C-alpha cells in the first residue's frame, strides 16, 4: 500500500478542526452535565450519546467533501463484503474477517474511507441481525480501527508481515476493550475499573479469537485485496479524480 493522499489535504484540515471542536468541547460538556445532573450514574446513556457524537464529525466531513460516485461505491462494496463475510462465518463466534477487511480498505484508501467502511459495516450488519444499544459502539470501534489503519497506510509499514501481525493483535484487543466498556456500563450504568478488568478478563477468549482471526485474515487477505484495490485505482483513475 502506498501513501494515497497528500497530508496537506484541505479536507483533512477542516475535518481535524471540526473533530477537535466536538471532541474537545462537547464531550467534556456532556460529561460535566452527566456528572452534575445525574450524580455520576447513567454512564450507559451518556456513553451512547458520546459514541454517537464522536462519529458525527466523520460523517459531516464526508458530506462536506462531496464524495465521488466511485469512492462511495468502493466504501459500499467493502462494507458489503465485510457484512457478507461476517454472515459467512456465523458458525464461528468472534472469528470474523470484518476488522481485516475494514483495515485493508483503510490501508488503501486512507483514514476517512477506513472509518466510513467500519461504520457502514456496523450499521448494515445490524440491520440484518437486529439493532441494539451496541450498534453505536460497534460503529465507533470498527470506524476508529479503520481510521487508524488509514493513518498507518500512509507509511510503508503495512508492507511487512510483522506490522500486520502487530496491527491485527492490537486491533483485536482495542475492539474488545471498546466493546467491554459497553458490557460494563450496560450492566448498571456505572463504570468502575475493577469491574472493567473483570469484564475484560472474562472476555479474554473472545479477545484472543478477535486477535487471531484478525491476524489470519490480514496475513492472507492484505496483499491480494491490496493488489485488487490498486488495480481498480489505476484502471479507473480513482487517484486522478
Amino acid at each position, binding site marked *: 500500500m502506498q501513501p494515497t493522499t497528500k497530508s496537506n489535504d484541505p479536507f483533512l484540515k477542516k475535518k481535524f478542526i471540526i473533530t477537535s471542536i466536538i471532541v474537545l468541547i462537547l464531550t467534556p460538556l456532556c460529561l460535566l452535565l452527566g456528572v452534575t445532573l445525574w450524580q455520576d450514574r447513567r454512564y450507559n446513556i451518556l456513553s451512547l450519546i458520546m459514541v454517537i457524537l464522536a462519529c458525527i464529525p466523520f460523517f459531516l466531513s464526508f458530506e462536506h467533501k462531496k464524495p465521488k460516485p466511485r469512492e462511495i461505491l468502493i466504501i459500499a462494496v467493502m462494507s458489503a463484503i465485510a457484512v457478507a463475510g461476517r454472515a459467512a462465518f456465523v458458525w464461528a463466534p468472534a472469528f470474523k474477517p470484518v476488522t481485516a477487511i475494514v483495515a485493508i480498505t483503510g490501508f488503501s484508501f486512507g483514514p476517512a474511507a477506513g472509518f466510513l467502511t467500519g461504520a457502514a459495516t456496523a450499521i448494515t450488519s445490524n440491520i440484518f441481525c437486529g439493532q441494539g444499544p451496541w450498534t453505536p459502539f460497534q460503529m465507533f470501534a470498527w470506524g476508529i480501527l479503520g481510521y487508524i489503519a488509514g493513518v498507518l497506510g500512509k507509511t510503508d509499514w503495512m508492507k511487512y508481515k510483522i506490522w500486520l501481525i502487530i496491527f491485527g493483535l492490537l486491533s483485536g484487543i482495542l475492539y474488545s476493550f471498546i466493546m467491554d466498556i459497553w458490557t460494563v456500563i450496560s450492566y448498571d450504568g456505572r463504570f468502575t475499573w475493577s469491574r472493567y478488568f473483570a469484564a475484560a478478563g472474562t472476555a479474554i477468549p473472545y479477545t484472543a479469537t478477535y486477535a487471531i482471526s484478525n491476524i489470519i485474515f490480514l496475513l492472507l487477505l492484505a496483499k491480494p485485496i491490496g*493488489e485488487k484495490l490498486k*488495480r481498480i485505482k489505476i*484502471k479507473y*483513475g480513482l487517484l486522478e479524480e
Partner: protein
Amino acid sequence: MAFIDIQQLTFSYPQMEQPVLHHIDLSIEEGEFVVLCGVSGCGKSTLVKHLKREITPHGDATGSVLYNGTLLNELSDKIAASEIGFVMQSPENQIVTDKVWHELAFGLENLGFNTMTIRRRVAEMANFFGIQTWFRKNTMELSGGQKQILNLAAIMAMQPKLLILDEPTSQLDPIAASEFIATLHKLNKELGLTILLVEHRLEEVYPIADRVVIMDKGAIICNGTPKEVAKALQHVDQHHPMLGGLPTPLRIHHALKSQTNAPLTIRDGRQWLTNNFKAQEWQSKKIYDRSFEKKTVLSVKNAWFRYEKDGLDVLRGFSIDVNQGEVISILGGNGTGKTTALGVMSGILKAYRGKIMIDGKPLRKISNHELYHQCLAVLPQNPQTLFVTKSVISELQSTVETQNLTKEEENLQIQTIVRKLNLESLLERHPYDLSGGEQQKVALAKVLLLKPRILLLDEPTKGMDAASKTVLATLLEQLKEEGVAIVMVTHDIEFSASHSDRCALFFDGLIVSSDETRTFYSGNHFYTTAAHRMSRHLFSNAITCEDVIEQCNQQQNRMIHS
C-alpha cells in the same frame, strides 16, 4: 441541422496505437429509432459512450459531437445528465439503491427536484412501465427482465430526449428480451423518443428500426433504412462474421443472392419463400447417427430435488441419459430449474430421491477428487466465478497445478489448450479486461484443462455475438470427436438447433419431451427456430438457416438445369 451530429470522430485508448474509431460521421434526427450493430470489438460501444459525456472513456479524441447544435462538452451538467439517458448491458450493475421506488427517484433527486414533482414523475413511470405491483419491493427480489425495465424506467423518469442503450438485452432470456424491445418500440412510437440502440441480436429489432448502422473495425460500413442496408450488404462477403447476427429471413435472402425486395420479418419471409420456391420433401445428409450404440456415461433416473426441507420441489422425477460423444441441449423457460438440474447432474446439488450414475457407478460413491478430475466438469453461467488471478496465463497455470504433473507436462497441456482456443493474444491480460465472449473462452479453457469426459455447460452463449458462437461451436464439435459427452442448458434455440444432437424440453421439474434435434424442432409449433417457422409450410423438416438455404439452392440449381 440534425439532432445528434457526430463529425469526424476519431478515438484511441491510452497506450494503444490503433484508434478504435476512425473518422466517424453520423447524424441522427429527432424521433428516429436507430440500431447500431457490428461484431464485438468493432467500436460500437466506444462510439455510443462518446454521446454520454459522464461515461466517455479516457483517451485521445479528435472530431466533434454536437447535441442539438451545441458541442456536447459545452452543455450544462444538468442538461447533459438529464436529456441524454444511457442504459447499460448488465441489469444488476446499474441498480444503485435497495428499493424499487428509490431507484426510480434516484436520478430526479440528483437533479434536485422537489418531492411533489418526483412523486408525480415516479407515479407516471410506474404506470407506463407496469411497475405498480412491485413498486415497494427490494430491488434484489426482481427478475433480470424486471431489473432492466426498472433501469429503463429510472432513466425515463428524468425525461431524456435521447435514449442510448448498449446491448440492453444480452443478459436477458428471450421472453424478457422481447418484452424489453417491445417497450422500446412503444417509447419511440408513442412518445417520439429518439433511440440509439446497440445490439447484436437483431432478429427482433431490425424490422422495427428506422435506420440501421453497421460498424466494422471502427468505421461505419452501412447506414440506411433496414431495406437499404439489406441491399447494401449484398456487397459484403458471404462469410463476414457480421452476417450471423442478421434476422433469419434476411440471412437466407442474402445467402441466396436474391435480387428481390428483402424480407425483414418471418411473415414477409414466408411470403417471399412461397413466391419463389415450392414445397418439397427433403432428407438432410447430416442426420444423427444411431447406427452404433454409444456408451452411456451419465444417467439420471427419477431425481427429485428441493433447496429447503419444506420448500417446493424443483426437480420432480428428472431423468436423462447422456452418451459418449454427443451434444445434448436442455431447453426451457426461465426459472424452471434447468440450472438446478445441471447442479444435480454434476453432483454439486444432492437429489433426495433418484439414481445418478456415472459410468455405471453411483455418483455418491465417487469422491469429489475423482469426480472433478478427468471425469466431469461444469462451465458455470458466469465465467467470472472461476477467475482467481491477475492474468489469463496464471489462471491456466493455477488449474493445471492441481493435477500433480511435471513441469513439462503442465506446459504442454497449457500450450495445447491455448492453441486450441486461440488464446495466444490474451495470455498476459487480466481476465476482467476481456470481453464477455473472451472470458467465456478462458473459463472453458480452465475447465477443459481438467480433461473432462463429461462437460456440462450452463448458458454458454449468453451475451455472445454470432462470431463468438461460431468459435464455441467449432470447439464443441472437436470435443465431440474426442468422445466427450456434452450437456448444455440454454435459451438459445438457434444455437442448439445447429449444434446439438439431441434436444430436450425441460418443464415443471422434468424433461417433458426429448428427441433427436431435427425431429424435436420440426415437431414443435411455437418452441422452434425462426428458420423453421418461416419455412415449414414448404420444407417440413428444415430447422436451421443452412437447411433452408440448402433446399432453396437445390431448387434453384434444378431450375437452372431443367
